[in-house]
């Protein structure tokens, strides 16, 4: 009986990808969908980066040179929304699609058709959102946090498009997360126990739970906005008995887990790359898992540290201050574990390793400025200044984005069967590393000196720092175009890669040939201790 079934399946599955555009439209293959996600997020990175360069061009000198404040607000808002929901999150989902089935020894994701849907609604969501920039009245201009009543009473008419775009992004994220959890919990090869799973799989499992918990909250917040705007309710309207501060509570109840959604998979990636190039096992695997779980739990009880200045009772301020600082403990555990992994390792510094080490150093700096912001009395000074901008860009750009770039270089040979050009990769790293620091480091100083965020013009004393920042932004922006060049050149003319592309690299995906075959692990692999993680 089972032979008959196998034969039937054989006909269905053992062929390569379909030809032409329909391959990408109708694909249910986790590798194809991963590729789609990655290219989509790269396109969004360039769009969001373009908006950032418009911002930095305007801020190059004090005064209004190029754009009007109304348009500037649309640039900051859409830059934030596109980078968060369009670049970072889909990139991680793309990596999850490519890697999780191979890393747990599964043939594909658990729900391949839903996988196709969760990708294909994203271009529509972002098409809808970006189209508002060309509408009468302009696009969203209320900041990526879309605080009511800016986003309700005072919003441009196009806000409804924004609301539906957010709904679509949320639906996509929820479906993606359900798929990832279902895959990890049900599709692991025999012998792959939970505590043998690769760190990337672990971090994504926890991230997916966070997404499922908070995406409905975001959907609820935008739905209430929709009702306030069109159906005369007063959720956030004080005149009708509502409370705009409630919006901030609901938003940040979503928003704080959201920022960990954007960093936990990065922790997983770095936990693969550092052991590989230090040629040692990851130090403290168990503590890494527990640290990620603790960070995820704590993310739900710290949200009000984003809103210390709204007028909160002292007890509330103290609670949110201490709970926020508590997050430094598990995060510190992770940073020390990465350092201990490198300690006395036989380190080499290929491009992924360079990005991973830069991640550890610069993410830690972003973490420290976060600790400074957590101190309630000091936060009254820092709130809504460029210090906050510097803080979250340090954790998101050399944090999340560097980890994604590191992952692309690290798994590039497995995906394409080609080795990237090491020299060009290193040039890309150094350009990015210098660019990111020149851009964001001076913002700490302008912020501490009192420069508010989200302003198109500023006082003269901030001129030098802003000029440096703008120069850095252009270096960083154009080095990502160089990244595109490196990738395309390596796909076309890279040297062939071995199956186990890095010396002694661990993990089931490296037992496959490079490039990974279109269908892998149709039969569950034998999980040996050496290959698990």
């Amino acid at each position, binding site marked *: 009986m*089972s032979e008959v*079934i196998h034969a039937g399946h054989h006909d269905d599955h053992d062929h390569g990808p379909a030809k032409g555009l329909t391959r990408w439209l109708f694909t249910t293959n986790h590798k194809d969908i991963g590729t789609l996600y990655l290219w989509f997020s790269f396109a969004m990175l360039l769009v969001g980066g373009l908006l950032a360069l418009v911002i930095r061009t305007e801020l190059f000198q004090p005064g209004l040179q190029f754009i009007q404040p109304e348009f500037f607000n649309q640039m900051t808002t859409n830059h934030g929304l596109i980078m968060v929901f369009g670049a970072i999150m889909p990139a991680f989902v793309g990596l999850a699609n490519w890697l999780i089935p191979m890393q747990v020894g599964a043939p594909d994701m*658990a*729900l391949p058709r839903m996988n196709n849907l969760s990708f294909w609604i994203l271009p529509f969501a972002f098409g809808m959102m970006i189209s508002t920039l060309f509408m009468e009245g302009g696009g969203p201009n209320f900041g990526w946090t879309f605080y009511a009543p800016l986003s309700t009473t005072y919003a441009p008419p196009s806000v409804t498009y924004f609301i539906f775009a957010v709904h679509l992004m949320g639906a996509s994220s*929820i479906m993606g*997360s*359900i798929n990832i*959890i*279902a895959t990890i*919990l*049900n*599709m692991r090869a025999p012998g792959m126990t939970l505590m043998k799973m690769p760190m990337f799989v672990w971090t994504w499992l926890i991230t997916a739970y966070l997404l*499922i*918990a*908070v*995406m*409905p*909250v975001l*959907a*609820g*917040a935008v739905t*209430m906005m929709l009702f306030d705007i069109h159906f*005369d309710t007063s*959720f956030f309207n*004080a*005149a*009708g*008995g509502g*409370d705009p*501060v*409630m919006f901030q*509570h*609901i938003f940040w*109840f979503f928003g704080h887990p959201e920022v960990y959604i954007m960093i936990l998979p990065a922790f997983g990636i770095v936990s693969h790359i550092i052991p590989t190039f230090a040629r040692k096992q990851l130090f403290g695997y168990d503590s890494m898992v527990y640290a990620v779980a603790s960070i995820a739990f704590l993310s739900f009880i710290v949200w009000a540290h984003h809103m210390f200045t*709204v*007028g*909160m*009772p002292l007890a*509330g301020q103290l609670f949110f201050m201490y709970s926020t600082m508590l997050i430094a403990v598990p995060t510190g555990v992770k940073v020390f574990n990465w350092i201990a992994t490198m300690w006395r390792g036989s380190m080499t510094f290929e491009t992924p390793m360079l990005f991973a080490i830069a991640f550890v150093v610069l993410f830690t700096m972003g973490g420290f400025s976060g600790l400074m912001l957590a101190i309630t009395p000091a936060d009254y000074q820092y709130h809504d200044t460029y210090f906050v901008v510097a803080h979250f860009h340090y954790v998101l750009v050399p944090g999340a984005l560097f980890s994604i770039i590191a992952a692309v270089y690290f798994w590039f040979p497995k995906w394409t069967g080609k080795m990237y050009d090491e020299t060009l990769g290193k040039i890309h790293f150094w350009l990015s590393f210098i660019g990111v620091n020149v851009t964001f480091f001076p913002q700490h100083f302008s912020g501490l000196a009192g420069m508010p965020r989200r302003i198109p013009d500023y006082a003269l004393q901030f001129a030098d720092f802003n000029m440096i920042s703008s120069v850095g932004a252009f270096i960083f922006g154009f080095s990502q175009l160089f990244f595109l060049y490196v990738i395309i050149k390596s796909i076309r003319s890279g040297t062939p890669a071995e199956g186990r592309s890095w010396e002694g690299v661990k993990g089931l995906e490296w037992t496959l040939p490079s490039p990974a075959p279109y269908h892998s692990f149709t039969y569950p692999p034998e999980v040996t201790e050496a290959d698990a993680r």
Partner: protein
Amino acid sequence: MTNADTRSKGISATVKRLCLMVVGMGLFVVALVPLYDLLCEITGLNGKTGGQYTFDEAQADPDTSRLIKVNFITNTNAGMVWDFWSQKSSVRVHPGQIKTVNFYVKNPTNRPMVGQAIPSVMPSSAASFFHKTECFCFNQQLLQPGEVLEMPMRFIVGHEVPQNVQSINLSYALFDVTERVDLSEAVAAN
């Protein structure tokens, strides 16, 4: 049963659980709104004061050992063109003492308008002890063109107000709600 069968059963069980979680979190957001209001009412968070307070004036029992300064702040929200002011900028009261202060609004436009005042008390630890037996903020005000309205506000600061509270700020923000209400109904109500 083959391996594939158990696997697909496991997947559908996981998916069901996760869908329940999504629905549960959706319900949680809906519940957050009344929960937030309840929490604010209990703790005085955000300076929200309660509704109309009933108090027998014969029972008034001022605590003459303490004197609390109550400051009045009147604001009009963006786009609200009425003039809005209070008779006094501040008064000193004993806890338990009943006091009346007059507020005034004027509609300088040439059309009837409806206003709604929203109170907020700072510090929030005093909010739940600041009781109003009569306040214009309990209703909306309909003003004909050029009309001036005197609005008494009677309040009492409860005995239980924390010892460290020496002054209380009561702020009113006046909103234009003309477009939110049916004018003819408002006329009838007045």
